[in-house]
């Protein structure tokens, strides 16, 4: 069911773009590789490997912010992949500002231990599977009231609750992304949403920030506990593409 539900087969054109992008990368034509990976993404081919490869192409091109953004997207989809984690760490080390990523409280992390090891898709499918098991069990219990079944359903119910919370958080973050990466070489963070406002501080390519709100072509961000407004064109949201 997990495999069956993961979506349609990629179209031939998207696969061609993916393969041509790999060839362009091998030939050190990184800008062409990026363009072709973007094309594959536009055509609906969006596995984690695509974002990982795109991150590599951006990294080689010297676009650190874009690379970190692509690696973060890949990490969402491939949370247990060591290559993604290694390349993301390498790219982060190269960034001028190594701003700590936002972390959940320890108690929440303990409760949702699996959350950090599954992708949003996996999280939703696990929840679907738990829903099928739980409600099937409840349906059986309607006709067959056995004590053992009741105890099993309590356990399944708790697991269903935990998985549901995880899937909810994942889905929320997919639907309303609030993390971004600075993609401009140098970006001024201002006191208000206008180019005439006072510059509070500057961020550089690759700085990871949290977006609080948007207004016109400006994003209100917080970076290392400091708030300010940054031009929307200077940041790239970390989000996975949906169709």
């Amino acid at each position, binding site marked *: 069911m997990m495999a*069956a539900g993961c*979506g349609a087969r990629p179209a031939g054109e998207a696969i061609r773009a*993916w393969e041509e992008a790999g060839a362009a990368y091998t030939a050190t034509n990184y800008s062409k590789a990026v363009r072709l990976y973007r094309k594959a993404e536009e055509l609906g*081919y969006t596995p984690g490997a695509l974002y990982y490869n795109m991150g590599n192409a951006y990294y080689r091109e010297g676009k650190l912010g874009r690379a970190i953004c692509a690696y973060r997207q890949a990490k969402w989809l491939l949370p247990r992949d060591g290559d993604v984690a290694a390349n993301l760490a390498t790219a982060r080390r190269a960034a001028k500002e190594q701003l700590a990523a936002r972390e959940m409280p320890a108690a929440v992390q303990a409760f949702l231990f699996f959350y950090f090891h599954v992708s949003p898709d996996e999280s939703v499918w696990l*929840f679907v599977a738990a829903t099928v098991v739980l409600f099937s069990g409840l349906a059986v219990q*309607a006709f067959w009231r056995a004590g053992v079944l009741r105890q099993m359903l309590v356990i399944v119910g708790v697991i269903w609750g935990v998985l549901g919370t995880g899937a909810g958080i994942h889905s929320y973050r997919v639907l309303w992304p609030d993390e971004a990466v600075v993609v401009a070489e140098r970006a001024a963070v201002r006191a208000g949403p206008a180019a005439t406002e006072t510059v509070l501080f500057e961020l550089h390519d690759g700085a990871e920030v949290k977006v609080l709100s948007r207004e016109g072509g400006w994003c209100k961000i917080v970076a290392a506990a400091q708030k300010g407004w940054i031009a929307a064109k200077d940041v790239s949201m970390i989000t996975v593409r949906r*169709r």
Partner: protein
Amino acid sequence: MVKKTTLETMAIRKGTILAMVLAARVLGVRAEEVRVTASVDRQVLALGERLTLQVVVSGSQNASAPEFKELRGMRVVQGPATSTQMSIVNGEVSSSVTFTFVLAPTALGEQEIGPIEVRVGRQVYRTTPMKIVVSEGSQQKQSGGEAGAGQAVFLVLQADRTNVYVNEQMYMTVTLYYRDVQVANVSQPQVVLKGFDVHEEGYHQGDAVVNNMRYKFVRFPMVVFPLQAGRQEVGPVRMKVRVREPVASRQRGFFDDGFFGGGLLDEFFGRFQEVEHEIESNTMTVQVKALPEEGRPAGFAGAVGQYELRAGVEPKAVQAGTAVTLTAELAGTGNVNAVSVTLLTNTVELRVYDPESRREQRVEGTRMVGRRRYTQLVIPLSEKVHEIPAIEFVYFDPRQERYVELKGGPFAVEVTAVPEGSDVRIADYRPVKSGGGTVKVLAEDILGLKTQRSVWGTRRALDNVVCAAGLAVPPMVWIAAVVIARWRERMRTDAAWTRRVKAGGRLHKYMREARAAYRRHDHRKLCEAVSDALCHYIADQLHVNAPQVSAMTLPGLVEGTRVREETVRAIQGVLEECDFGRFGGGVFDAAEARALLQHAEEVAQRLQRELR
């Protein structure tokens, strides 16, 4: 009688105060120091108007009556009326005595009250003189405008200093003062300080004397850090305040006069309205000095304040390729969230991992303090490593007006070689020889492309129909199962309900048999089937035995139901006709049989509508 009651009340009050004093002495609570303040309820008034002067002696109740050393252009009309207060809060005794005078102006122009002298024990306390302006016309209450000039409500922006360095902390307060009005709701002030990093810190309330007038206040403190050098204009800060004001346009009645206390009635009957006012504070100029270029160390990253750095390494003896932990703690006064210690970086002989850091920051008194703890794993790659290098932190101390360099380390460590034949592997690093063994190292570079094409994974789960179905269908199946299980359970346990449920089905079954009998010209069977259909339907609906139902018993059985009389008569007619055909030897021709069948179907339909 009245006098006696008053004397009793006074005796009780004195007794209570005496008991509190004794209790305070027994419990060893602390007394506060003596303070004498004087305040008036207005600073501008007209001839013929009166003002109230209060002299409050706090910290003692053994004060002599106040003595006016100067009272120019004013006379005492009434007073002093004396009231005492005493309370013990958290072991602190708070006692005060208040002398209230009513004064009336005797001359126009600027007049002066005081100084006023009060003797407490052997000590004489003196208040500062107060200026009062006496005009000819009546004065109106004002709000807003210049701070402290006798308004009912005003906002004041203050700072502990106005000449600071970039990133040096300032303690600022926005204080709302009000008197003679009821403030129903105070919103957080809109503090937009361009060029400052602002940390707001809640609020607190209290009483204060401003310009010799007693006010209540709500204070919003904040710690701010200027981010840019130069002359910075701060404020005005704006705030919305909801003030309870009497409803102006209303008919005043008999009970609204002073005797019945119009204000009390207003309060009781809710004749007040809340009016929202936006008030703004004063502005101030802050001179922000740039940090000096002279003597600025290379590692300076903008930290300003006073800091301490502590650091250490554990364990101090390891084998090459094994990690030691470097811990560092930076603590002090300043914007700790915005500063960082220069930790270790990779070298040929040291593999350094990203540090973990924790930080905490809070306001103590008027200063922002905090601490930042770092933990960093460091792997010596060779036995030639004898020390872990020092870590550094540079800050500018605005008190001393100089840069301060802090160092933690270097830390001596004893690194032993990897034994012959051993092979220690560390990710992302280059190979280094250590003793007889090797520490395997990979270059610091990104890993290669992923070439395996993903067959699936092109559509997100949230957009997948199977996923939506997987979430929606199981609950529906469960609900259906519960409904079916309950249905079955009732069918098993509730015979009357079960018969009612099945009654319609049985009726249709018998009517089908009747139609089949008609088609076979078996008129006897037709009569049997029609009779069974009606009798069984009625018996099932009323939960009685079918043989009990007959043309004769029918009226009694359906009594109290919704079956109408003409329907009963029609059923009786059909049943009698059927009985005639079954038992009376009656013979029907085809037309009569068809008429009987049609009549029976019509009656059955009516019966189904009326008897459910």
